[in-house]
């Protein structure tokens, strides 16, 4: 008996197979149910990256799950990307005058730490433009080679240049300040988000840092 199948394994028969209608229908129903079950969360499941790399037959939007790393992937018509977009930028050293809330320095995409280069673009010093609406986790880190010596020091996340949505203060004698917004809602496409730093006094201070952005949904 020749049993052809299509990519999801649904059975098809030749005239010469000689099966009864009941046999064919039952086998087809079973194979269709299995196909639907497999489609619950992923089109393919791989043991490791070797199996994933060898995958064929995918179409744009196909999803797969890699067991050894417990990671879900999506096919973008050229490569398998990790499903959840994540982007990181380094922040170059910049001298920031005291008493002024100032955008941190020049950003550079850290491609090796990122799974997406398109969810946000660099918009200037300390600024990224988030392309699509959604909910994002944002992390900013600012540090100096010396210590924060002013009477006030903080880092803040700012949307659109005027809306401070999150701020974290640092005690005066620290070298680093973290700021985290685990659920930043963007309601307008191409919203610019700024990482800013402030030191009340102490003259100019060179600071650098890192920005991390992950889309949650």
């Amino acid at each position, binding site marked *: 008996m020749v049993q052809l199948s299509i990519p999801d394994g649904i059975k098809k028969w030749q005239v010469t197979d000689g099966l009864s209608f009941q046999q064919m229908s039952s086998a*087809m129903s079973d194979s269709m149910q299995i196909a639907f079950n497999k489609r619950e969360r992923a089109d393919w499941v791989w043991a490791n990256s070797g199996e994933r790399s060898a995958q064929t037959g995918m179409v744009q939007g196909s*999803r797969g799950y890699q067991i050894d790393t417990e990671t879900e992937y999506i096919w973008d018509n050229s490569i398998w990307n990790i499903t959840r977009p994540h982007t990181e930028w380094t922040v170059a050293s910049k001298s920031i005058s005291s008493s002024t809330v100032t955008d941190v320095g020049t950003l550079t995409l850290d491609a090796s730490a990122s799974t997406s280069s398109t969810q946000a673009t660099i918009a200037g010093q300390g600024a990224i433009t988030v392309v699509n609406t959604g909910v994002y986790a944002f992390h900013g880190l600012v540090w100096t080679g010396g210590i924060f010596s002013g009477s006030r020091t903080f880092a803040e996340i700012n949307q659109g240049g005027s809306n401070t949505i999150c701020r*974290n*203060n640092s005690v005066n004698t620290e070298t680093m300040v973290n700021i985290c917004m685990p659920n930043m809602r963007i309601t307008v496409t191409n919203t610019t988000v700024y990482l800013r730093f402030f030191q009340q006094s102490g003259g100019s201070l060179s600071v650098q840092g890192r920005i991390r952005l992950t889309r949650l*949904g």
Partner: protein
Amino acid sequence: MTNPTTPDGIPRWEISDPVSLVQVSQALGDATQTALNKRERYDFVWANDAERIAQLAMVQGSRGYQVDTETEYLYDSRDWSPAIQHAEWTFSTSIPSGVVTGVGTMTFDSAKSTSTTMTSTTTSGGTGQIVINNPGLYAYTFTRGNGTASTGRAFLDLLLDQDNLMRHNLFVNEDITTLVVPNIRCVDFQVPLFNKFYHSNGGSLTVVGRVTVTRIG
């Protein structure tokens, strides 16, 4: 021949239809594969807002994916909302000195929220409460701004279900700070979270702020 199809386009036949069993089985296999390819993880895929708005035949719980914004939507029997559940609340109140106090009446920010049912509010047990309605894992922020305490202590308190206390300090002379909990686990229904503020500046201090809640699992 009458040829009705299922909602996913799977063909069906009347007993009187002049088709062979092999024709039936092959047509079923091909149509099912087409339906699976279209479905991927979603019931619908749209190019843009206009296609999504024009969608018909959805039922409560239907999911769709909008290509231009790379956003997944969920239909609640009335509206298509981004599938990730997110809610924001604002407050503004006067806090007396020396008393840990709820931050006042919570006002729902519908423009920033994607879910009207994930959270609710009540004044039973004190003001400043957000109630998380379902068990799950949530990202939470509590940002307080306005009004600078120039002396003494100041802090934000977040109480999960009355007894699990998280605290974030506000330094003297600061006006804005954010308490962040990226992974609050609620194991019961109707879990209240109390948002409170304390200062020892003397007199009353008017504070305004925002609470954000996102369900991440």
